[in-house]
C-alpha cells in the first residue's frame, strides 16, 4: 500500500493506481475530457502509453494483451466519440470474458445531463456489454474504484469493467491512498467446486462407455491447460475443443479430435453427438457449437459441466452434474481423486469407442484438393504452421480465413490463438496482433486476415510503424467477403449480394506507404518461400497479400438448424 499525505490531482491518482496494479501498457487515444490524465501520463514512465489510430483498436489491442498474457488489459479513451468508438471493442471482450479495465473521460460533473460537447451516457451505453461499470463522482473515490475495477475484471468469470471519470474529478485533489485489499459484499465468486459433485462426475466418467471431453475458452482463461492435459491423459479419453479453447489441449496429441461445431471436424462432431458421458469444461454449449439443440438432445447422454459462471450452466442444455467453480481448481481436485482412488475404467468399452473414433477420423475431413494453379487458403495456413514451427501467436479476423486458421494451424499451447469468438468482430486481427506483439516483443506474431476484415482497422498500419512492431500479416485475399459468399452459395442459390470486394487497394503499395514491407503471392509454389522470407525479416512488419482460390469453402459445415452429425463434407460435393 502506498500512502502519502500530499494532495495530488485525480489524474495523478489514476496514474498512481495504474502503477500499483503493475500496468505495463495503456492503449489509448487522447481528447478533451482526458487532457488532465494525458498530462499526468506525460510526467510518468512506469507504464507505456500506446497511441493507436482509432479507439476501437485500443480496446482490441488491450484485449489481446490480456488474452495472450492473462493479465488485465487497460485502455483509455475520451468522452463521447472516444467512448462510442470503444464500444465494439468492449463488447468483443465481454463476449469472450476478457479481463479489461477501460477508463473513459466524461464531461465535468456540473455539465452532465446538459448535452455538453462530447457528452454521452457512457455508463448507460456500455452497461449491457461490461461486467460492471462505474461513474466516479468524487476524487476521493478514484483509488477505491480503480481497485474494485481491477478486482472485478480479473476475478470470477472475467470481463471488461469501465470506469467513467468526469474531467473536473481528474483536476480535483485529495490524498492518495491505494487500498491494499478489496471486498464487495455483493460479489463473491465461487472458486472451489463441490467435492461431492466432483466425485460423482469422476464416477460417471470412469464408468462411461463412450466418454468425451469438450473443452472451451474457460480452460484457456482459467490457465487450466496443464490440469486438463493430466486429466485426459490419465483417463485416456478423447477430447474436442471449441474455437475459443484451441491450444488448451495440444492439437498434436492423438486424443485430440480437433475443433467441434459449425466448422468442426467430422470426428469431433460425431463423438460429441454419440458420447454417453460428456465432460464440458469452461464451455457454454453455444449455437455455433452444438448446432440444433433438439437434434443434440435427441441422443441421450449424461452431461457434467464445470464452469465458474453458474448462469452458463443449464442455460441452453440441461446439465446433469453441474460443478460451479474455477476450472483449474476443479480439475486439480479431479486429478487428485484419480491419483488417490485409482478408479477402474470400463476399458473394453473405451477401446471400442476409441476405435469408432479412429474410423471417423479416417474420413480425413480436412483434406482438400490441392491446386497447381490457385493458392489454397488451407495450404497457406499449413505452411504458416511449418515455417513458424507451430510456435507463433496467431491472431485472426472473422470469416473463412479465421476458420481455416483454427482448423489448420494446430495449436499446441494455450493463449496462442487470439480471435473474436463470441461477437465475431471483423477488424480485430491487426490490433490483436499489436497487443500480442507488445506483450511478447520477440515472439513471432502472425495476423491471419481477409481483405474485407483488414480494412476495418487498416489505419493501425501506422501504429505498427510508430512502434516498430514486426507483425506478419497473412492476408488470404479471395476478393470476397468469403464467409458471407459461402452462405449465399449454400442458402441463397449463389446470389452473391454485396459480398464481392471491389476496388481493393494495392496492398503492397499501401504497406510500403507506411514504411512496411509488402509482398504479393499469387502462385502456390511461392507460398512457402515467401513465408520463410517474411519471417526471416525479424524486425520488419511484413504485409503478405496471398491471392487465394476465390470460391474455396470451409468444410466440414453444419448448416443452420442442422444437427452435429449432419455435416456437409468437402467430399460430398
Amino acid at each position: 500500500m502506498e500512502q502519502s499525505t500530499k494532495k495530488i490531482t485525480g489524474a495523478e491518482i489514476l496514474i498512481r493506481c495504474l502503477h500499483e496494479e503493475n500496468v505495463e501498457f495503456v492503449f489509448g487515444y487522447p481528447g478533451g475530457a482526458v487532457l488532465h490524465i494525458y498530462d499526468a501520463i506525460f510526467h510518468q514512465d512506469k507504464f507505456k502509453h500506446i497511441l493507436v489510430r482509432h479507439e476501437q483498436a485500443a480496446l482490441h489491442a488491450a484485449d489481446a494483451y490480456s488474452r495472450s498474457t492473462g493479465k488485465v488489459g487497460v485502455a483509455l479513451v475520451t468522452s463521447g466519440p472516444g467512448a462510442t468508438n470503444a464500444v465494439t471493442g468492449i463488447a468483443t471482450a465481454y463476449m469472450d470474458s476478457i479481463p479489461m479495465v477501460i477508463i473513459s473521460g466524461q464531461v465535468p460533473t456540473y455539465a452532465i445531463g446538459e448535452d455538453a460537447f462530447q457528452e454521452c451516457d457512457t455508463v448507460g451505453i456500455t452497461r449491457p456489454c461490461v461486467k460492471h461499470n462505474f461513474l466516479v463522482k468524487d476524487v476521493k473515490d478514484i483509488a477505491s474504484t480503480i481497485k474494485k475495477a481491477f478486482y472485478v475484471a480479473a476475478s470470477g468469470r472475467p470481463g471488461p469493467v469501465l470506469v467513467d471519470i468526469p474531467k473536473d474529478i481528474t483536476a480535483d485533489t485529495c490524498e492518495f491512498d491505494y487500498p491494499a485489499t478489496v471486498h464487495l459484499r455483493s460479489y463473491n465468486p465461487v472458486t472451489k467446486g463441490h467435492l461431492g459433485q466432483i466425485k460423482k462426475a469422476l464416477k460417471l466418467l470412469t464408468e462411461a462407455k463412450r466418454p468425451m471431453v469438450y473443452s472451451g475458452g474457460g480452460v484457456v482463461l482459467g490457465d487450466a491447460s496443464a490440469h486438463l492435459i493430466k486429466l485426459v491423459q490419465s483417463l485416456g479419453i478423447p477430447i474436442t475443443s471449441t474455437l475459443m479453447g484451441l491450444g488448451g489441449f495440444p492439437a498434436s496429441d492423438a486424443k485430440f479430435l480437433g475443433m467441434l461445431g459449425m466448422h468442426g471436424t467430422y470426428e469431433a462432431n460425431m463423438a460429441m453427438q454419440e458420447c454417453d458421458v460428456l465432460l464440458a469444461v469452461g464451455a457454454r454449449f453455444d449455437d455455433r457449437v452444438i448446432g440444433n439443440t433438439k437434434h443434440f438432445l435427441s441422443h441421450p447422454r449424461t452431461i457434467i459441466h464445470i464452469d465458474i459462471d453458474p448462469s452458463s450452466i443449464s442455460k441452453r442444455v440441461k446439465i446433469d452434474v453441474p460443478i460451479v467453480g474455477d476450472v483449474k481448481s476443479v480439475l486439480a481436485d479431479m486429478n487428485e481423486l484419480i491419483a488417490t482412488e485409482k478408479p477402474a475404467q470400463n476399458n473394453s468399452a473405451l477401446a471400442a469407442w476409441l476405435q469408432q473414433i479412429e474410423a471417423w477420423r479416417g474420413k480425413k475431413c480436412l483434406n482438400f484438393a490441392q491446386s497447381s494453379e490457385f493458392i489454397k487458403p488451407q495450404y497457406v495456413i499449413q505452411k504458416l504452421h511449418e515455417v513458424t514451427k507451430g510456435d507463433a501467436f496467431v491472431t485472426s479476423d472473422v470469416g473463412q480465413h479465421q476458420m481455416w486458421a483454427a482448423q489448420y494451424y494446430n495449436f499446441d499451447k494455450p493463449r496462442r490463438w487470439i480471435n473474436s469468438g463470441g461477437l465475431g468482430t471483423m477488424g480485430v486481427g491487426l490490433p490483436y496482433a499489436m497487443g500480442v506483439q507488445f506483450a511478447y516483443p520477440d515472439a513471432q506474431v502472425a495476423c491471419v486476415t481477409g481483405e474485407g476484415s483488414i480494412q476495418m482497422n487498416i489505419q493501425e498500419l501506422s501504429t505498427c510503424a510508430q512502434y516498430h512492431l514486426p507483425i506478419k500479416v497473412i492476408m488470404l485475399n479471395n476478393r470476397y467477403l468469403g464467409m458471407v459468399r459461402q452462405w449465399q452459395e449454400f442458402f441463397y442459390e449463389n446470389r452473391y449480394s454485396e459480398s464481392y470486394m471491389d476496388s481493393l487497394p494495392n496492398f503492397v503499395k499501401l504497406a510500403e506507404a507506411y514504411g512496411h514491407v509488402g509482398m504479393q503471392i499469387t502462385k502456390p509454389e511461392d507460398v512457402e518461400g515467401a513465408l520463410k522470407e517474411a519471417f526471416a525479416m525479424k524486425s520488419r512488419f511484413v504485409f503478405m497479400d496471398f491471392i487465394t482460390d476465390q470460391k474455396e469453402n470451409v468444410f466440414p459445415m453444419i448448416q443452420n438448424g442442422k444437427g452435429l452429425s449432419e455435416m456437409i463434407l468437402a467430399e460430398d460435393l
Partner: protein
Amino acid sequence: MTTHATRHIISLLMENESGALSRVAGLFSARGYNIESLTVAATEDPTLSRMTIVTSGSEAVIEQIIKQLNKLVDVVKVLDLNDGKFIERELMLVKVKATSAFRDEMKRMCDIFRGRIIDVADGSFTIELTGSGNKLDAFIESLDKAAILETVRTGASGIGRGDRILKI
C-alpha cells in the same frame, strides 16, 4: 421440469446506488425476460435497496433469471419467493364515479373488499385497496367499467412467511 410459464415473485437486495435499477431493468429487456411489475425502495439500511420483481417463465427461464440477477455485481442477494411460503401485497388507488345514484353501491363494494375511501369529492371517491394482485383484479372486475375514472397500482411487494428472511 415444467416448460409452461408460471408466475414468480423474486425479491432481491442490491446496493443502493444510482444505476442499480437500470442494471436490473436492462437485464430483463436484453434477455427477453418478462416483467409484470417491479418495485424498488431503500430498506431500513439505506445502503441497500430491496426490489420485488414479478415475472413469469418456465422453470428453466426462472432459473436463468435468478442466476443472471445474482451475476450482477451490485446484487447482494436474490430470493425466489415461490420456493417457499410467502405473502404478496399490492396497493391500488382507484378513483371511481360516485354520483348520488352510485354512492351507496360504491361504499358497499369497497367494504366487501375491505378497501378504504380516502378521498371524497362531489362526484367521486378515491378508494385504497391492498391485497394480492388477484384480489385487486377481482375488485376492478366487480366494478362497473363506466364507473372507473382512474386506477394506479404499485406492483407487488412480497415477503417470506415465518422465518424465511431476506437480509444480509
